[in-house]
């Protein structure tokens, strides 16, 4: 394949014949089937689920799985973006277009609003907002009465995520207690919570970064263009390449320069690093992922560098 920047998004004739011609089941089929199963269980057992969609690659896969689980019906839950306000415009364009194509409802939980209403302290211009998403998310959960948030987190991303259940319980304060997780045997997912409590559901728990890319290739899933190699003005900071933007400008001693890069993850623009890459196609990205010697978050996320247990600490507070 050449490029998938603008692939077909609907069910195509090719994909139909692909299934019919392939009676055997491969590992992507099983991962997909399991993810569909989890989504249907959550939709059936929970009163008010919501699907979290950031416009990133994992949530793009999550949306495709949701389509597979519930079409030709509508999705039995709204789609919600927890918006840091520090966005790559390509990602926001993609988010809006994708949700519109699906004909589903998009909710936005805004970190800017949390700042404006004094729910969280303003980290200042260009300050990192990833951790602030927790308050916006928990406030939205309370406001809408959600009892389950379906997210695209994977266990291979981080050592704390590696410990988390597929259906992960949050108490009335939104906290995760890793020492008191519910047993979760076989594929018997129990979705019941008391009022005020909620679940996080992770249908892609067992997928790896490589599985995600192989699935994107197989399903011809569209992604924001910043996932593919492109020229961009960047600033090197703390061993990461940050995109020059309204929030990230060169500090004394730093210079911005043009580089061919792509993004391996998409988050708050002030703390999401790009990687040098010439990979303009899914096929080339798959090759890069297969030989990478740095983990996805290790390469691209400044917010995981604070301490040994950054992710666990954030998750305990109610982060994704």
């Amino acid at each position, binding site marked *: 394949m050449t490029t998938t920047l603008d692939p077909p998004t609907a069910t195509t004739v090719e994909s139909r014949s692909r*299934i019919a011609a392939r009676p055997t089941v491969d*590992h992507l089929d099983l991962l997909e089937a399991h993810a569909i199963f989890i989504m249907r269980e959550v*939709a059936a057992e929970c009163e008010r689920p919501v699907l979290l969609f950031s416009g990133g690659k994992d949530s793009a896969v999550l949306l495709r799985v949701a389509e597979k689980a519930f079409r030709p019906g509508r999705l039995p839950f709204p789609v919600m973006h927890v918006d840091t306000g520090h966005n790559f415009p390509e990602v926001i364009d993609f988010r809006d277009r994708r949700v519109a194509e699906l004909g589903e409802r998009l909710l936005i939980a805004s970190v800017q609003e949390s700042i404006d209403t004094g729910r969280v302290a303003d980290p200042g211009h260009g300050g990192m907002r990833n951790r602030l998403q927790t308050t916006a998310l928990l406030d939205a959960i309370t406001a809408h009465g959600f009892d389950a948030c379906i997210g695209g987190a994977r266990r291979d991303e981080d050592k704390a995520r590696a*410990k988390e259940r597929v259906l992960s319980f949050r108490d009335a304060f939104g906290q995760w207690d*890793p020492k008191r997780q519910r047993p979760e045997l076989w594929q*018997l997912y129990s979705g019941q919570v008391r009022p005020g409590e909620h679940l996080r559901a992770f249908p892609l728990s067992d997928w790896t970064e490589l599985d995600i890319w192989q699935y994107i290739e197989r399903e011809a899933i569209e992604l924001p263009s910043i996932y593919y190699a492109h020229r961009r003005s960047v600033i090197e900071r703390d*061993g990461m390449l940050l995109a020059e933007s309204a929030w990230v400008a060169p500090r004394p001693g730093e210079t911005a320069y043009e580089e061919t890069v792509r993004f391996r993850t998409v988050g708050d623009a002030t703390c999401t690093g790009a990687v040098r890459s010439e990979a303009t196609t899914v096929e080339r990205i798959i090759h890069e992922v*297969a030989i990478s*010697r*740095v983990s996805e978050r290790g390469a691209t996320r400044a917010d995981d560098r604070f301490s040994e247990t950054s992710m666990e600490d954030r998750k305990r507070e109610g982060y994704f």
Partner: protein
Amino acid sequence: MAAIADGTDAVAEAGGVSEYGSDADVSREPAGQPVMDLLRFAAVGSVDDGKSTLIGRLLHDTKQLFDDQIEAVELASRGRGIDGMDLSFVTDGLRAEREQGITIDVAYRYAATPARKFVIADCPGHVQYTRNMATGASTADLALVVVDAPKGLREQTRRHVCIAALLGVRHLIVAANKMDQIDWDQSAYDRVVSEMAHLSERLGVVSCTVIPVSALHGDNVADRTDAAPWYDGPTILEALEQAPVGEWAGVQGTHQGSGARLPVQWVLRQPGGGRTYAGMINGGPLRAGDEVVVLPSGQRSRVTAVETLDGPLREAAVGLSVSVQLADDVDVSRGDLLAAAGDLPDLVTQLVATVCWFDGKPLIAGAQYRIKHTTRVTPARIVSVDARLDVNRLELLPADSLEENDIGTVTISVATPLATDPYHRNRITGSFVLIDPNTNGTVAAGMVGLPDLTPLDEDPASLDDHA
């Protein structure tokens, strides 16, 4: 290594922030090619016998760890006054785990060698966290049992092997660990072999490979050691690469399973007014044209189409999520089961089952819970607690209650009839959990039927606990 077919891609040259190596030897799996060959295994055994260290060693020596992960483990080790790397930190990622040097909950890791892909569940060994071990073992094809060879099998090792075997794990790889501490004394290894043979026979284990290792130093994990010239069997890695796969899902399994079953998760309304019934296939494949019975109602119908968003399938294999159209306008809703007409499950309102009890409050007759079986949740009452399994003697002893972490047999009555198969025939229709209606906590894992214990002439000497 031939894992990377195309090594010509332009990859960034090593620079300040370059993250790519050009060396194909570090590849984690063949690029671009889905791999069918996938083994799910759980590392089990008693606390401090070295499960996490063994998994860390295995991942490290097979180059599954990223550079930044290795750095993080080195840093965390140094911060605790440990020279070099404490490989248990690879999977013991929680703050409390590193403080205490124990595993609290299962860590899932994903790895691939040129031979196959692996999903690894590194389970906690502490008796307090038996429920988490059962969580990890419930989806495993194989158990990697780690034993402190100088000390021999402990009660907790036996408990884990029992739970794994009851959960249907039929293949064991046993790491007789810490052989370096006793100068690779073959008699310690032989003792583990004989104890494991006894357990395996009693529990119906099909294969049990015992391997002398030192997880700490990496002997016989990924690389063969010359410290034990008396041993000529496989390393841990070789044994994992040779073990049968697909045991759990039955996708490639050889055991005799039930006929096709489809627990209905969700009803999809089709344009034009029809309905299809969505769920994941288990037991056996389902095809258009197959006669099915809807349970519990007992209505018969025929599958007219097996649908997916990508189009219809001629045959839905076990493990696929599909939706099914029926020839007749029958009443089907979530919680119902479509079953192959030629091989029906049992429709029961009372069942005898083997349970692992997880709650701090004992399980006693008369207690009320909710049962989740396939996609059905319904009230359940404990009619009687019948027996408790003595994990040392491997005998069912009469009992009228089960304490936390006990394994036993119970009789349960349920409010709505359930379509069950014995667990050994079908792990989906043969399994259930009990849920505390007050806390919503999962308090028991249950398997339909009694434990399958092979009668054996007792050899008292082999029952000593060496702990």
